[in-house]
């Protein structure tokens, strides 16, 4: 059974999965037309799997922002795999490629993308550079948790940027959850202290903390973030239960440094890949996963409240290769008809 077939089978029979797979497909339409149509073009252009083929493939991956080192790794593995399985026909290579992409992503580890919830109060800290969509993601997350029947509270920890507190406030009203805030310019650590205290006393299930966007090379701002982190863990041992790094899918190779630095400072537990509904592919998450072992937990696929989906590497790749699946299926059906 082919890889795509397996994937398809995996998702059929489960309505919810199919639905979110559709969403992936929809959100990744633009992504897909870029990436998969290129792979298909490639397959059409080459009859043989030779060096030219690999070179073109390399370029497609580089243009998806996968990054040089990861692409080189992948190419080496692909060459090996092709040799081992003696794949001469390029059309078979497609499935080898997608298998490898998922494999590189998982890096041999079975790590779950589930959020780590505490039995008591769960604290989620949202971090990232400026303009990646932290506040919007918090709004979507709050909506998600509320749908699941949890009580949610938000902490307006971005006391620096003009209008940031109001922005979170609007999200709080939209979703219908409380927002703990102080005035602009106040100490973010103090806001967190307040928020954790009142979350505890009001007995909410999840507290999501917003922070100001900061470039990872600003030492002072990173220290400030560390302090915020410290204040939270002092109030609740084991908290924050999740530190989510928001990453813009449009970002290039700098995302790797972002992930690395934020991980050092705040022990990032997962990534939210935002703005994946554009033409950007966000390929750098492959490098981040394989080098830093930080899993992607959610992807932002649009502007609506429910456009935040849990990340599933197989679905992600499925989304990229959905066109390939449809074609393969067609071929299989034709063969069956004969």
């Amino acid at each position, binding site marked *: 059974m082919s890889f795509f077939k397996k994937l398809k089978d995996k998702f059929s029979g489960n309505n919810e999965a199919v639905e979110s797979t559709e969403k992936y497909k929809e959100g990744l339409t*633009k992504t897909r037309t870029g990436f998969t149509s290129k792979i298909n073009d490639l397959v059409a252009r080459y009859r043989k799997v030779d060096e030219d083929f690999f070179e073109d493939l390399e*370029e497609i991956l*580089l*243009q*998806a*922002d996968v*990054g*040089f*080192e990861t692409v080189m790794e992948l190419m080496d593995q692909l060459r090996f795999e092709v040799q081992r399985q003696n794949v001469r026909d390029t059309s078979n290579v497609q499935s080898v490629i997608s298998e490898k992409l998922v494999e590189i992503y998982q890096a041999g580890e079975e790590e779950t993308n589930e959020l780590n919830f505490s039995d008591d109060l769960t604290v989620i800290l949202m971090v990232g*550079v*400026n*303009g*990646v*969509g932290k*506040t919007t993601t918090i709004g979507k997350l709050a909506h998600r948790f509320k749908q699941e029947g949890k009580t949610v509270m938000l902490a307006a920890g971005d006391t*620096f*940027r*003009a*209008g*940031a507190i*109001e*922005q979170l*406030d*609007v*999200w709080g009203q*939209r979703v219908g959850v409380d927002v703990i805030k102080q005035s*602009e310019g106040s100490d973010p650590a103090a806001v967190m202290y307040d928020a954790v205290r009142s979350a505890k006393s009001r007995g909410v299930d999840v507290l999501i903390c917003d922070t100001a966007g900061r*470039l*990872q*090379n*600003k*030492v*002072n701002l990173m220290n400030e973030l560390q302090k915020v982190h410290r204040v939270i863990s002092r109030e609740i041992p084991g908290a924050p239960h999740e530190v989510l790094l928001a990453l*813009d899918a*449009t*970002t*290039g*190779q*700098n*995302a*790797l*440094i972002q992930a690395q*630095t934020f991980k050092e400072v705040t022990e990032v537990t997962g990534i939210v890949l935002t*703005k994946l*509904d*554009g*033409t*950007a*592919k966000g390929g*750098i998450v492959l490098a981040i996963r394989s080098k830093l072992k930080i899993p992607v937990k959610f992807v932002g696929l649009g502007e609506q409240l429910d456009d935040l989906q849990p990340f599933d590497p197989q679905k992600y790749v499925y989304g990229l290769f959905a066109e390939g699946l449809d074609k393969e299926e067609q071929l299989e059906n034709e063969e069956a008809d004969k």
Partner: protein
Amino acid sequence: MAFEGLAERLQGTVQKIKGKGKVSEADVKEMMREVRFALIEADVNLKVVKGFVKKVSERAVGQDVMQSLTPGQQVVKIVKDELTNLMGGEQSKIEFSTKQPTVIMMVGLQGAGKTTTTGKLAGVLRKKHNRKPLLVAADVYRPAAVQQLETIGKQLSLPVFSKGTELSPVEIARQAIEHAKEEHLDTVIIDTAGRLHVDEELMQELKDIRALKEPDEIFLVVDAMTGQDAVNVAQNFNDSLGISGVILTKLDGDTRGGAALSIRSVTEKPIKFVGMGEKMDALEAFHPERMASRILGMGDMLSLIEKAQTNVDEERAKELEEKFRTSSFTFDDFLEQLGQVKQMGPLDEILKMLPGANKIKGLENAQVDESQMDRVEAIIYSMTPQEKTTPEIINANRKKRIARGSGTTIQDVNRLLKQFEDMKKMMKQMSGMNTKKGKKKMNLQGLDSLFK
């Protein structure tokens, strides 16, 4: 660190070539591979890289490089020259209308930094071009975007035209232009909502705003960290709107900023400004050559020198040099120097501008502790005037008092005193040397004070 500059990358290849009598075409090809790696790692678009490498290869196999004793450096130079050319060569100025008001539109993806840049740009136009700007809050989609611009307007004491989020952005822009005419405000800067370049409906809205009064500038605001997709974004915005220039934001980060090159090469529109920090005045003119150096990881010496020159008073520097020679350099002078260095901006940023700074181990993530400087200042402030001029009199009791006064320890005080003595000795030796060699002065007055 995953990011090596081109110069470092080429070093390895050049080492191999060094032994050989001459450089062959194959060697150049090998070097070009490294150029390609470096550019891709800097996020320059692959297609742009290919065209560029081809162009550079042609020049590099030429006689000059082959016969040169330092082919590696020659290649780096050619790459940098070509990169600078590609980036527009010269600095590009902002356009104003002869018919009031001048209209400037800010467009771009979500989170690129349009609203912040709108504020910064207005500040620059008022300060450097003597304009009277009106900020227009036309982002009615993102929650609190209007409040954000209003707050920025307040910070800068600039008028903001806002009509809440009920009216359409086109109507808001129309009224704003009328309002500017009535109030005799000569420059209207319209902050539009972030949108995807593939969102046709929202792109149409921008076209409608443009149709109100042909803008004198349409700035595409782009995050400097953007990857390969930068070409698609720039191309789409340019095709549907006809942008007039680009503003690159968040360049105070540690990204190489290869997107700048990609955008320039697909749109052929100049990059006019770069955002360099969180403060409202952190918007600077774009310098193609410096950007070329940055993409290649070669440091930004020119910006550093400029910073030193604008912030360090030459007269004072000369005076200090005199003091060094006569050993009359006191803690008061030292304090003043610290102040000057601080004025130049965050130290870790200054360090990053030094060429090769990224090669020094441990400096790639330069963690310059600015509070250390504050401690030094505190110690000096806790000295009596007499102690400052004649530190020799500082005995154990005085040290105890200084430490207590500055909230530091006696060890801290000791360390500073020792450093100060060493520095004086060193400076005396250096100025002594200069005198012997016919009083040759250091040619970079501002710069050397950095290291004193």
